[in-house]
C-alpha cells in the first residue's frame, strides 16, 4: 500500500452501537477526511487489501450542509457498490467546495467478487444519527453511523 494522501490508510476506527455500526475518521483536509471515511466504509464491507485497482469511477454529489455532504458521499459509495458492485481500493476527492457543499470524487477499485473478496457487512445506508464533523488542532474528524 502506498502512502499518498489520497490513498486509503487506516485513519479510521469502528464505533460500537447497538444494532448497527459506525466509523470514526480523520484527515488533514476535508477531502482527506472524506476519503478516509470512504475507506472505513469499504473496510466494513470487505478486506480492502484484497481489492485491486482495475477500474475507476467518477461521481459528484452535493448537499445542504457540509456534514450532510459526508453522509451523501458515503451513500453514493454504497449506491455504487449495490448497483455496479464497485469496491474501492483508493478514493481521491478531486475537488470539494465547502461553501457550495459539493464535491467531485474518483473511486479506484474493482467489481466485488465473492470468490476473492471477503464478505463482511452489507452496509445499507449512512445516517445522520449522532453525526459529528469538526476541526480540532488542524485536523478534521468525523463520526458516522451506518444502517446495516
Amino acid at each position: 500500500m502506498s502512502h499518498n494522501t489520497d490513498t486509503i490508510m487506516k485513519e479510521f476506527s469502528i464505533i460500537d452501537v447497538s444494532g448497527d455500526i459506525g466509523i470514526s475518521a480523520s484527515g488533514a483536509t476535508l477531502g482527506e477526511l472524506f476519503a478516509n471515511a470512504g475507506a472505513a466504509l469499504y473496510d466494513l464491507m470487505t478486506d480492502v487489501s484484497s481489492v485491486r485497482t482495475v477500474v475507476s469511477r467518477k461521481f459528484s454529489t452535493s448537499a445542504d450542509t457540509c456534514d450532510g455532504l459526508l453522509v451523501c458521499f458515503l451513500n453514493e459509495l454504497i449506491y455504487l457498490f449495490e448497483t455496479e458492485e464497485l469496491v474501492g481500493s483508493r478514493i481521491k476527492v478531486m475537488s470539494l467546495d465547502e461553501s457550495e457543499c459539493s464535491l467531485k470524487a474518483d473511486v479506484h477499485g474493482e467489481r466485488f467478487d465473492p470468490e476473492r473478496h471477503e464478505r463482511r457487512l452489507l452496509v445499507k445506508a449512512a445516517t445522520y444519527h449522532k453525526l459529528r464533523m469538526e476541526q480540532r488542532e488542524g485536523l478534521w474528524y468525523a463520526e458516522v453511523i451506518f444502517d446495516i
Partner: protein
Amino acid sequence: MATELKRIDANRLLVPKGYLTGMRTDGMIFVDEVLQRDLEKGSIEQVANVATLPGIVGNSMAMPDVHQGYGFPIGGVAAFDLNEGVISPGGVGYDINCGVRLIRSNLTKPDVMPKMRELVESLYTSIPSGVGSKGRIRLGERDREHILLKGARWAVEQGYGERADLEHCESGGCMDGADPSGISAKAYERGKAQQGTLGSGNHFVEVQYVDEIFDEAAAGVLGVFPNQITVMIHTGSRGFGHQVCTDFLEVMGRAVEKYGITLPDRELACAPFSSSESRAYFAAMKASANYAWANRQCLTHWTREIFYSLFRMTPREAGMTLVYDVAHNIAKVEEHRVNGVDRKLVVHRKGCTRAFPPNHPELPVRYRPIGQPVLIPGDMGRASYVLLGTHKAMNETFGSTCHGAGRLLSRHQAIRQAKGRAIWREMEDKNVLVRAAGRETLAEEMPEAYKNVSNVVDVVHNAGISKKVARLRPLGVIKG
C-alpha cells in the same frame, strides 16, 4: 410536572410529559422490571423525542423489544392526526416493510430430520443471500413499475406462489396508492437486481417445528399443530427501500425548514401529512412496501419448490400454505377510536407489528373470529412465536405489538464474545443447522446477542396487547 419515569403496573412504564422539554404527550414503554434493566437511556429519550412531534395523538409508545434506532426507536409506535400531524421516514425505518411471514406444512419433525442438512444446503444455494449476492430475477422496464403497484400480486402473476397467499398477507400484500413516478432513478437501479434476495444481517429463512401450543382453538384455525414443520421468512425491501428512505430524508430535511418544524434530532425529519413532500414520501413508501411483499413472495415460492423436490411431495400433499405475512416497518392510514371518537390517523410502526383484534374488517374472513396473526421471530437458537391481536391492543397501542427479541449486544460486542468459538458448532450441538454467507454473521447473530424473545412475548401477552398461540423452535437457518 413529573419528570421521572413512573411504573404504572407490572408491564407499563410511563415517560411523563415533563421528561423532556417540548413533549406534547406522555411516552409509554411496555416493559417489565426484568427487561427494564436492559432499557437503554437512548431509547427512552427517543420515545420522548417522538412525543415532541406536531400532531401526535395518544402516547408515544415503545414495545418491550425496544432499542435505539435513528430518530424513532426501534420497537416504537406513534400515531398522528392527518391535518395537524406529520409523516416521518424515520418512523418507518430504512428497510421499508421489513417483515415476517410464516408458512405451515403437513410435515412433522420426524419427517424432515433425516434430511435436515440437505434441506438447509438447498435453501442456502437456492435463495440468494449476503453481501454482493445477485437475485435470480431480472426485472424488465414494465416489471419494475408493476412490482411497485402490485406487490405480492405481481409475484403471483409471474408464477411465484398462489393467489390464496395474497389473502393471508397484511394489506393483501399490496398497498394502494403507490406511485412509481416519484421513485428516484437510484432506487430503481438498486432495486433492479435485488428482487428475490434475502439480504444479510438479521434477515433469514428458518425451518422450525411447533414446540408448544398455548391456544388450541386458535392454532386449529391457523392450521398449526404440535411437532409440525413451519418455515419463517424475514426480509424486506432491500436496497430499494433503503434508497427511498435515504432520498426522502434529504427531502424531509428541507421540509423541516420550510414548514418551521423544530426537531430534537435530525433523523426525525418529517413534513405535515397534508404537504406535497409527505404525499410523495407516502406514495414512495407504499411502492417500497409492495417491493418487499413481492420479495417475500418470491422467496416463499423457492422455499416451497425445495420442499416439494426434497420430500417428493405434491403441493397438495405438502400443504405449505401461508399462515400470515406481517410488515414491521411501515406507516399506514388507519381508523382508530380516540376518546370515544373515530379518527383517521397515520400510524407509524417501526420494529413494531400490527395486532388487530377479532372481527376487524382488514382481516381475512378465516381469521376474523380469532384476530390477526402476529409473527414474532426470536434469535436463531431459542424460539419464535405466533400471537394474535386483541381489542386491548386496538384501544391502547393503535393495534400494535412487539416485533422480535430486540438486540442486547452491539454487533462488535457480539463478535468479541464469539471470538475463538465456532458458533455453527454450538448451534449444531443444540440441533440447529446454520448456514450464513458473511464470515461474521453468525457471531453477530448468536443467541446471546439478543434479549430472550420469551420475556418480550410474555410482556405483550400479560399486558393484554397480544395473545400467545404457539411457540416455534428452530431446526435449520440460512442467513445472509
